[in-house]
């Protein structure tokens, strides 16, 4: 086996250009896949963190495809907060508004006691300026930048104008590019009187999520309560994003696979006599097949490594682009790398099937007469 590996490596080495072209095909597939999966995975994680802020559970309207369409009566938050198994409940209303420069600006309708503003670094103003009975809004640092607004000035959002009372730097890109409005003002602005999109529920110590689920299930059958991880797994928007990422990545891989197939076909056709000689020298058909599959597999492994490097470098560069800072939080975890490696291996094996089959069926005597 070691010797066969030696022949495989020698074959790849002596056809460097062909090997590099094959590996480049796989590398581009891997790089595209890891970049897309990494970018969208990062976006999903950022959104998850918005929901999680100091909470273990999310309550929202059952069967909605998007949290922007979920309506949960805010009085339920007060009722739920009274339960012994609950430490706190924060209603959050999500809304999207367009400004002349930006087609999408995310608005968060929250209460002043919501933890997310407390955690931020206040660049201007203070948490005390954000009042539930007022109309003053707080801008994430990026939002303040693209809305070109400072405290003391007003920002037009939808049909109304709102005074800016503070600017806060937040780690999460979505939040840092968002507008924080008092819940009531947000409800009024988006015609969502008395409702929130979600209730973020923090559990009291030594209590279980099942208690919240049971309470919600009994009293409000149109709502659902999920733990954060359950929500992440079941939320259809996340599923769509993740599926899209893998489908786009998979298509890129198919193209990479075609390149490997092409390379291997070329490799077999250009050395028909050599393959015949190896058969005359005692190579069995299975050894020839192993040799072709081995070459393809090694090209793929090389392509995976190259693709991994390319995607890591590409994402790092993207993250450094000032306009994208905070919005890009690529996550290339071991699952993504494993997925790409497995796909590359499968692609390599599938790509080598026809060349290997052709090589194994070569009749040495005829092949040696081949011109």
């Amino acid at each position, binding site marked *: 086996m070691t010797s066969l590996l030696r022949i495989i490596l020698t074959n790849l080495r*002596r056809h460097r250009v062909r090997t590099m072209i094959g590996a480049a095909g796989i590398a581009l597939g891997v790089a595209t896949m890891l970049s897309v999966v990494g970018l969208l995975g990062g976006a999903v994680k950022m959104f998850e963190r918005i929901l999680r802020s100091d909470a273990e559970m999310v309550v929202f309207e059952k069967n909605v495809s998007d949290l922007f369409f979920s309506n949960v009566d805010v009085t339920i938050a007060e009722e739920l907060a009274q339960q012994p198994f609950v430490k706190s409940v924060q209603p959050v209303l999500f809304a999207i508004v367009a400004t002349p420069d930006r087609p999408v600006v995310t608005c968060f309708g929250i209460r002043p006691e919501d933890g997310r503003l407390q955690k931020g670094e206040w660049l201007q103003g203070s948490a005390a300026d954000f009042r539930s009975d007022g109309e003053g809004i707080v801008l994430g640092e990026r939002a303040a930048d693209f809305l070109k607004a400072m405290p003391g000035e007003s920002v037009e959002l939808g049909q109304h104008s709102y005074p800016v009372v503070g600017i806060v730097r937040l780690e999460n890109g979505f939040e840092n590019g968002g507008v924080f409005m008092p819940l009531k003002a947000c409800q009024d602005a988006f015609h969502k009187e008395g409702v929130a999109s979600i209730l973020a529920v923090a559990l009291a110590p030594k209590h279980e999520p099942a208690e919240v689920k049971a309470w919600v299930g009994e009293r409000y059958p149109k709502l659902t309560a999920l733990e954060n991880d359950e929500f992440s797994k079941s939320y259809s928007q996340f599923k769509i994003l993740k599926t899209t990422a893998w489908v786009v990545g998979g298509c890129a891989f198919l193209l990479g696979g075609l390149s490997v197939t092409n390379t291997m076909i070329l490799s077999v056709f250009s050395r028909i006599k*050599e393959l015949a000689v190896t058969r*005359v*020298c*005692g*190579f069995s058909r299975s050894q020839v097949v192993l040799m072709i599959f081995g070459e393809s597999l090694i090209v793929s492994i090389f392509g995976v490594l190259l693709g991994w490097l390319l995607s890591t470098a590409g994402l790092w560069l993207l993250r450094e682009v000032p306009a994208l800072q905070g919005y890009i939080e690529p996550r290339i975890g071991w699952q993504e790398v494993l997925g790409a490696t497995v796909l590359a291996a499968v692609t390599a094996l599938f790509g080598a099937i026809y060349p290997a089959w052709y090589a194994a069926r070569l009749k040495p005597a005829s092949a040696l007469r081949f011109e």
Partner: protein
Amino acid sequence: MSMIAIDNVWKSFDEGRIAVLKGVTLAVKRGELLALCGSSGCGKSTLLSLIAGLEDCDRGTVTIDGRERKTEREKVALLRREIGFVFQLHHLMPDLTLEENCLVPVIAVGDPVKQAKARMRELAEMTGVAHRLNSPVRVLSGGERQRGALVRALMNDPAILLADEPTGALDEENREIVFQMLLDLSRSGGKTLVMATHDQEMAQRCDRVLRMRDGKMVEP
């Protein structure tokens, strides 16, 4: 018992339209050096391919050392241990070194490469290419390449050596050198040699000469 026994073998190509061998019968003794002579297209190369198991005959039997080799596994085993093949063209892989080329049959068999290298060196000394073992084939002369091909054919110490016009692509000087080496190595190693050649003079230096014409054996 003959080392090679061919009994009433027929072989055609192109779905029977081109008959190449027409009832060939032949027996080669162990250690015998046999020259097959005849014009191009008379069936010499096809006969060698049938002996090596590279082609199947349409009718008749080919027996090596008393056994017919019918299955793929048997044919592979035949090529690995019992037969070494030298072609008119060296058919060495040009980008590999001579050493790497010579080790291909060893890798096919799965024998330890380290031990095989000792044998390779010995054969390379005998054929005068030891100093070229680490050179890529593309920089070797025609004679060196063919001598390298001879080393490769003998690496697994086969009992039978098949040579298809082994000197046909060489100049006069190298032709004599390579041919003499082929005879010497076959005789000293007790090998059975079947060599297809046009060259009458060289053929006469073998133990026996057979002539083929139009797919049949004819009287010498």
